[in-house]
């Protein structure tokens, strides 16, 4: 399928063509200027060679020329800047309706989880023509998620989620590389991305063994860690109700408003003492070192699912709490003072 001497990578995503356009523009520009300079110096070296016995004509310089060759490169580079920046902005902003796949990188493998609960190692299957957002985190060092055919790359950090997104356009199998040096077997931290037609993808998903959806696995963990003891929709709950929280602004105790995104949730589970939601006491214990990165992603998927199906009761309760979004979620629940003395629920299992 690959020729022996490829000169151009395959285009298999919507941004590939756009990146290539900029690349070609820059190649033309580079060729033009390199040739211009090369031709000039070779021409001068021959035309004005000393062996003809000529004397040099002294020219001091020309302010006009200096201005010309300052302004023209400046103009050209501003065009490149705007072009590149627009593209970058596009690459950095995943669309809201994307299929969300969670990935964990570790020395030296890639692990992916699908919303329906399928898991893969060093292999990623994605449907054709649908935006796919991969939320990535590392268990150890910095890795980088690089799919040349999609022209996307994102460093995968050990302490926060980074997103990469793409819309595949051509079915096929493509390289997945780790492009940030990550230790001994860095060059073997490679995988494959398989782009499938939507119907094939659905079939593939169904054939995959899954213990349940990611959200349901998250729900199990949620109960296993005892999160439900506090995070309940009733008025006696000591933690905020998590329905409808995901992706919405949350007011913190210090009056700042943050978005309850993946990073906020992960950070809050691991370091709950800070960035506490307004109206609640910081009584949540840390789950640092207890939850695996994959488990964390399941929990996030679960919390997210609570927002997607608002109106569905949480934890089988029949009385869902109404969510006032755009404002602080769950400010109505006041904390009782005696909480301090109570042993916090949701301790490590």
């Amino acid at each position, binding site marked *: 399928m690959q020729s022996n001497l490829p000169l151009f990578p395959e285009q298999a995503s919507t941004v590939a063509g756009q990146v290539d356009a900029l690349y070609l523009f820059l190649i033309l520009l580079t060729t033009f200027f390199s040739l211009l300079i090369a031709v000039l110096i070779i021409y001068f070296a021959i035309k*004005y060679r000393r062996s003809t016995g000529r004397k040099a004509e002294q020219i001091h310089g020309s302010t006009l020329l200096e201005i010309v060759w300052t302004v023209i490169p400046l103009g050209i*580079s501003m065009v490149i800047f705007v072009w590149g920046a627009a593209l970058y902005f596009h690459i950095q902003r995943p669309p809201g309706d994307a299929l969300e796949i969670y990935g964990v990188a570790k020395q030296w493998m890639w692990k992916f989880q699908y919303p329906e609960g399928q898991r893969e190692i060093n292999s990623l299957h994605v449907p054709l023509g649908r935006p796919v957002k991969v939320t990535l985190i590392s268990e150890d060092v910095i890795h980088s998620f690089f799919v040349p055919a999609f022209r996307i790359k994102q460093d995968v950090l050990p*302490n926060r989620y980074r997103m990469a997104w793409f819309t595949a356009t051509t079915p096929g199998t493509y390289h997945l590389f780790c492009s940030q040096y990550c*230790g001994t077997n860095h060059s073997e931290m490679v995988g494959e991305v398989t782009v499938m037609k939507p119907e094939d993808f659905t079939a593939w998903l169904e054939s995959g063994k899954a213990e349940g959806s990611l959200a349901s696995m998250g729900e199990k963990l949620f109960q296993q860690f005892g999160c439900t003891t506090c995070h309940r929709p009733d008025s006696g709950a000591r933690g905020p109700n998590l329905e409808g929280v995901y992706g919405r602004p949350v007011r913190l105790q210090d009056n700042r408003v943050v978005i309850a995104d993946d990073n906020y949730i992960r950070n809050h589970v691991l370091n709950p003492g800070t960035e506490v939601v307004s109206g609640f006491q910081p009584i949540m214990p840390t789950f640092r070192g207890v939850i695996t990165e994959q488990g964390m992603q399941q929990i996030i998927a679960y919390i997210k699912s609570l927002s997607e199906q608002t109106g569905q009761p949480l934890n089988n309760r029949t009385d869902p709490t109404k969510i006032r979004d755009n404002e602080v979620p769950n400010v109505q629940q006041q904390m009782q003072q005696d909480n301090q003395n109570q042993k916090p629920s949701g301790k490590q299992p």
Partner: protein
Amino acid sequence: MSTVAQTPERVMPDRHYLNDNYGIRSWLLTKDHKRIAILYLISISVVFFIAGIFASLIRLHLLTPNGALFTPDTYNKMFTMHGVMMVFFFLVPSVPAVLGNFVIPLMVGAKDLAFPKINLMSWYIYIVGVTFAMAAIVSGGVDTGWTFYTPLSSGFLHTNVIVMVVGVIFAGFSSIFTGLNFIVTVHRMRAPGLTWGRLPLMVWSNYATSLIMILATPVLAITLILLGLERGFHIGIFDPKLGGDPVLFQHMFWFYSHPAVYIMILPGMGVISEIIPCFSRKRIFGYSFVAFSSIAIAVFGFVVWAHHMFVAGISVYSAMVFSLLSYAVAIPSAVKVFNWTATMYKGSISMDTPMLYAMGFIGLFTIGGLTGLFLAALGLDVHIHDTYFVIAHFHFIMVGGMVMAYLGGIHFWWPKMTGRLYPEAVAKLAALITFIGFNLTFFPQFVLGYLGQPRRYAIYAPEFQVLNVLSTAGASVLAVGFILPALYLTWSLKYGEVAGDNPWRATGLEWQTTSPPPTHNFHETPVVTTEAYHYGSESEEEVRVVP
């Protein structure tokens, strides 16, 4: 060759800095900037060939997709040691500490640098640094990559990272002291009449380099000290387990290491600005623009570092700021290239070896610089970051630019340093071989990079093989191009033609003294009455030194 024939008298002076004193002590305890330059020349040549051997082994290994020679572990050590040795122990000191050390006091008409003892000390510190680096290599090598990214380097590798880091810190202090010396010398030691507007461009560019050395290098030192603390004592400022941010390490590392790129290229630009007017018999075109572009590069070079981190997890807005600023640094580089080209216009050009290197420099630096635009273009950088495209880009700047300039400078000032000429025909051949070998080695890597071969891969996908083989073939040609000068330059020390004081009929003050110069450089303090590069004026053949 015609220039040489016209030189009237070609005799070695009776006494010069090389025969003023004999014995190992007279070298190891010398305070003469010229002898220190020679000490540096010898030591960085050794480093260059060691690091070059690593490079050759890397290229040989990459002949086959599964790796021809080593385990991945050994391969990782190879590229790390190649990178560390080349960057910190060869490129950074190359032109400043060898050529700059030799010619800058001569160019400004001074007896020596401002602080001769500190100059000698900087060489010893450099040697201590090299010793640490060598110790790290001999005791099993280091596999962090020359960038030492945390948390990999601080917590996950089992090699002698700290020893290597200490070596690099020493090398850093050595370059701080060189920079300090240059700055004070240029400010305080200029000969009477040598105003800023008359300074040779080599001095301007080394001054700009020194600014970067003193302002950026200490940040590298503190960053690596913090890395050492994290690795040695688990005092982890970048450790994600304690809540540290590994991206901050990258910020601090690149705050030095990006300007360091200009430490490496600016002195090379200075060399080129000397060679081109001399072999074109012409004043430099737009002197003040070339001079100020050096300062502009030095200053702008400080505000662009995060373009190494566009996919590392920095904010989108700061990425835009850094991308925009990165283009600002491209402009002065372009101005320089255009001015060099314009200098050749209507000149009287002779294609001697230094000029061949200079022309090679202009061509390769242009390509290297323009491919930098690819990497600063945000959306495109996402694809080509950390691939062979980056490798090709910076080798075009570092090898195609800096090493070419360094070799050009060595050939240009060789008669001044040794009093002898090298065999011109062989030298021209070597320059040609270097140019061809270089292009063959690194041009395929642009294609490889865009195809998506990540850097630092011991094993790669089979479809990349043809281009890798091409690159390896080029590397063997390039190696010949580098070994040749080492051989014939050494040969010329004894058998080379006597050069005479000014074989190129150049105008700089360094050519107005004997070759080799006396220990105190000038028998009488020179007085400068003209601008630099007054080629073609009536007084050209006259000596510029007025008693």
